[in-house]
């Protein structure tokens, strides 16, 4: 029950979705924060606050990296007060011009507060990503109700 899965279909390319997740300036536009790493297996990654402070909100290790199709990483509180969870991005072709993006956030059993936070956060982030890729428009998603994730 504690695994979180979100699937969305987007008029775009796999490479654009990959870039949107892994390139800081791209992620900043719809996630409002950035993801920083060299995205090689075993490398550290950081989810940094988008206010320019570089404050680390989440960190972890890249477990698998197959651009532009699959990225797996651990997802930890920066104080490492809880066991890390795991996030998997799968980017698949669905129909001509449309890709299917599946986010699986699992291993959350030990951290119910994180599970609640990310289940509120992923729909905001991924709806905003779809809007950006299809229309060029985004919203500051963390200004509306709900928790940051």
């Amino acid at each position: 029950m504690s695994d979180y899965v979100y699937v969305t279909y987007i008029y775009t390319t796999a490479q654009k979705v990959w870039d949107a997740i892994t390139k800081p300036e791209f992620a900043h536009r719809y996630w409002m924060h950035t993801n920083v790493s060299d995205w090689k297996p075993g490398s550290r990654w950081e989810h940094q606050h988008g206010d320019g402070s570089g404050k680390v909100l989440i960190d972890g290790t890249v477990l698998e990296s197959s651009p532009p199709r699959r990225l797996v990483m651990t997802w930890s509180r920066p104080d490492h007060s809880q066991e890390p969870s795991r996030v998997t991005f799968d980017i698949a072709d669905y129909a001509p011009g449309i890709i299917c993006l599946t986010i699986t956030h699992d291993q959350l059993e030990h951290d119910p507060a994180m599970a609640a936070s990310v289940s509120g956060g992923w729909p905001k982030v991924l709806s905003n990503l779809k809007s950006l890729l299809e229309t060029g428009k985004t919203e500051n998603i963390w200004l509306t109700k709900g928790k940051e994730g």
Partner: protein
Amino acid sequence: MAQSSFVYVTYIRSPQQKVWDALTKPEFQKLYWFGGHQESSWKKGAEWKMFMPQHGLTDSGEILESDPPNRVVIKWRNEFKPELKAEGYSQCVYELAQEGELTKLTIVQTIEKENAQFIQAVSGGWPRILSSLQSFLETGRAHGDTRMPAEQAHE
């Protein structure tokens, strides 16, 4: 009580009333629901039926609660796959809320049965339908729909 459920939340850059209309009016549904549509007055106690072009009647039930454009609860059973029909009625809640420029849409579908095949089936369907709805309302171009010029699809 043992149950299965599916939850999907999406944020659509469109006024809440437009999202409600897109969810409840057949002329909009046909444009993004892969050609399918539903027949109902959407009033409490009313019949509710879904039709898909390739199958005819696919699902049926009743409106249990209705508070346009905020919330509707549908008693919902599959009608064309015997193994899904045998699982009986589910309950599906649509909740809409305006949050700034966006409408937050939450779909929760629940059935009183553990590991229900019906919930597995709708878990595959809802993300396709709601992604198509978001594209339709934000760009005028639904998924699998090449018929509508962007201008017409909005109105």
